[in-house]
């Protein structure tokens, strides 16, 4: 076996010391913060409770043209996904008069903020272009109009699938917010 020269030994030693220093730094950063100081981890949001939810339709701004089939598919997909969460005893549709008697009713609105009409053919031929996306502000409010939660989400179809699949993606994201919030 060939013995190390002085220069080679020094270089190996410096690499080993550097790796050890990096490991120590990483382990120090990974340690939880002391109990007295606030840590970087976010506090868990307090969960809301409601026996029923009503999904109200919201009209898009005048300068934002969204095809009606996209709006209707979004509405129906969200109703389906809200029901699937099983977080509420009843999911009321927009305009349902029977929701008036529910005391702890939460009202959900999806306020349209952006829409980009893509093309299925373009997506499948080019892979990277032609995505359809719909951006909305999800708003939960109480009956008296108090905003309980607001969040902006975006539904997309990027590669395969029809344009209306973006509305399914959006509704799954709404359901995920409902699962986290209620």
């Amino acid at each position, binding site marked *: 076996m060939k013995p190390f020269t002085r220069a080679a030994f020094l270089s190996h030693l410096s690499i080993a010391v550097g790796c050890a220093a990096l490991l120590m730094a990483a382990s120090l950063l990974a340690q939880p913060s002391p109990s007295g100081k606030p840590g970087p981890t976010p506090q868990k949001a307090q969960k809301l409770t409601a026996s029923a939810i009503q999904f109200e*339709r919201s009209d898009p701004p005048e300068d934002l*043209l*969204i*095809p*009606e*089939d996209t*709006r*209707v*598919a979004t*509405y*129906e*997909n969200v109703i*389906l996904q809200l029901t699937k969460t099983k977080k509420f005893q009843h999911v*009321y*549709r*927009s*305009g*349902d*008069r*029977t929701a008036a008697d529910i005391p702890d009713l939460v009202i959900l609105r999806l306020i349209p903020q952006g829409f980009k*009409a*893509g*093309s*299925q*053919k*373009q997506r*499948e*031929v080019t892979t990277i272009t*032609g995505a*359809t996306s719909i951006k909305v502000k999800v708003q939960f409010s109480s009956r008296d109009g108090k905003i309980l939660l607001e969040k902006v989400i975006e539904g997309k179809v990027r590669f*395969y699938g*029809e*344009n*209306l699949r973006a509305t399914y993606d959006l509704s799954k994201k709404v359901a995920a917010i409902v699962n986290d919030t209620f």
Partner: protein
Amino acid sequence: MITRSAQFNPGVSTKQRKMFRRLLQLASLLVSAAGVVFVATAASAFSQKLATPQASPSTSIPHVKCVIGLENIKANTKGTLSMLPTGLEFATGKNKVDISTASIQDIFTGQESRQDVSGPAGTLAKAAIPYGGGRIVSLFSHNVEVLTVEYVDSNGGFHGTVFVLAAGKATTFKEQLVAQGAKVTTHVQPPPQGQKP
């Protein structure tokens, strides 16, 4: 050598010829009469066949896809969309859903294109074609029309349903529903999906 010579009787042969001619005339008369009767019945039947769809065009269209929005009907189910005197009816093998004209709040039609080869199986088949040949298959598409019907239930709850029909059929349905008294508002149509405004 014994030879037999045929005796020629001119009186008998003319009678036979006349009889034969009459028979031929009768037969031709019978055949022509039968032909006239046959043509007349065929023409009336053909005109009936032609007249039936003209009297009620596109009353019932099979292979219509209900994308979403009907109770007890799964998304993207194919069925028969029919125009009834009271409204619309979508029927599959098991279920049947009616939308009454009085409950309809608005009707929209739009044009789109659909891939000729689509769905999970189609996507797999395209992916299996070597050297990106699936992209060539993706170029083939056909135009369809989308019929969106918005209606309310007995409690006032809003419902919407989206149907995909062959090109030109959705407009016919909309016109028939409007003629029945369905509500329609005037709206600004965005450009078809896939086209920049």
